[in-house]
């Protein structure tokens, strides 16, 4: 995909304020993207909302890259109604590391973080009510991880709750 430098006040101010916390700011296929370190991710989001007017959290999700060193990528998409701009903020995590919660910035983050936890097992530090949202509460395993098979299931849960040997 064509990648270009992202020019403007937002990336300049972010780089000036966070220094090495901002790993890269660029336009990927024309879309604004900021890769940040895990330590500064929470503050970058706060700065985007408070200083740059990104008042709408569009989406929050994750991507699992088991072959990469830091295997989880958490992606926030924020939008500013005032400037009609959309920015993707990304950070990477290792197994066991926690992502900062955005629930104190946007109420929308509550369910979205629960979904990421449900599907990837990524925990959000400071989330008020981090529990599964789509899968059953007692389910073992995180379905959107790459090692989780397409027909895999929690056999014990199925036996106990559905009273059948297999849900396949």
């Amino acid at each position, binding site marked *: 995909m064509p990648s270009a430098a992202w020019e403007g006040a937002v990336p300049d101010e972010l780089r000036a304020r966070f220094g090495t916390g901002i790993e890269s700011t660029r336009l990927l296929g024309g879309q604004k993207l900021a890769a940040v370190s895990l330590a500064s991710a929470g503050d970058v989001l706060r700065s985007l909302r408070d200083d740059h007017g990104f008042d709408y959290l569009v989406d929050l999700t994750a991507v699992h890259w088991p072959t990469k060193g830091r295997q989880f990528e958490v992606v926030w998409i924020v939008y500013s109604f005032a400037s009609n701009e959309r920015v993707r903020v990304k950070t990477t995590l290792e197994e066991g590391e926690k992502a900062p919660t955005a629930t104190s910035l946007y109420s929308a983050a509550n369910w979205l973080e629960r979904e990421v936890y449900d599907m990837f097992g990524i925990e959000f530090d400071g989330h008020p009510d981090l529990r599964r949202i789509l899968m059953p509460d007692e389910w073992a395993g995180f*379905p959107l991880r790459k090692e989780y098979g397409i027909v895999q299931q929690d056999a014990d849960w199925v036996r106990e709750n559905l009273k059948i040997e297999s849900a396949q």
Partner: protein
Amino acid sequence: MAATALAPPPAAEATFLDSNELVLNMGPQHPSTHGVLRVILKLDGETVLGADCVIGYLHRGVEKIAENRTYQQFAPYVDRMDYVAAVSNGLGYCMAVEKLLDVEIPPRAQAVRVILTELNRIASHLLWLGTHALDIGAITPVFLCFREREEVLKIFESYCGARLTTHAFRIGGLQYETYDTFEQECLAFCDLMQAKVQEYHDLLTGNRIWVNRTKGVGILDAAGCKDYGVTGPLLRAAGVAWDLRKAQPYCGYEKYDFEIPTAANGDTFDRYIVRMQEMEQSCRIVRQAAEALPEGPIKGKVGKVIKPPPGEAYVSIEAPKGELGYYVVSDGSLNPYRVRVRPPSFVNLGALDKMCRGTLIADVVAIIGTIDIVLGEVDR
């Protein structure tokens, strides 16, 4: 016998009788939850103190399935999320993959896409209006709405053979050329619809029961909408004239003349008015597109094998329920590495608790209806 004052009840009993708090389970099988939604309500008498949604009953792992199918194979699956607006889902997915492929869509394909998507918006709003009115107790509108919706479904059926899960679009453009009387039928439907919207207004807009059940119910103001990420008619009813078709035009929407209906109070009645006006605006768009349908090819330069270069894209459209986004990550193989769907119903339902607090239990039904959720999309 002389009347004697009753002895005060023991303290323990007094606290017991005093506590009116009740936890009530609504659903998952309940006629007004539009699918399988379970809401746990905490009540004080008839006043709602809080609502906790339990979702996931229709979870099919659509995002997981995407990683195990090719780009084309996954396209029909997206129709099964918001199945009353299947065309919008297909448009969003195709546009996201086209963004990864960096392919141009011919003008004729774009115009047909706009026509079908807007017809689907009308069909989705009609289904919403009928069922929402039914929830509140008005039985007639549902029959009238389904009568008009049928006309839209007939156009879909003539175009691609399917009525509900249409799979109308393909990555790169369209699979099918339009049929002979396509434009005339779309224009005839617009004429019909304009008259019918007035019929719905006559039934509901001045109806005292309807007004009393909807005005001032389930208020969510502009700041609340932005905080909860609530988009679509709910945001516009709170006074924010924001529509992705205008804010970040796609698929040639910048060529059409239409307005963004808004309202001021952000209550259930305002959302009803906004959706009614949106149906009229959709008719305007369909009319403009059908009257000047460009000639030319219906598919861009896309190979038989779809294999986007490594990269990622987030593309969103204005679906009938709000911002519908697709975040697609490619690793250069035949299957998408990751497909994330940003479902408007899921995010909007997140604000149910806030909208319900302090209202009466009977209004919960009205509020669930006014959010316009489809559980297939909430649970994916």
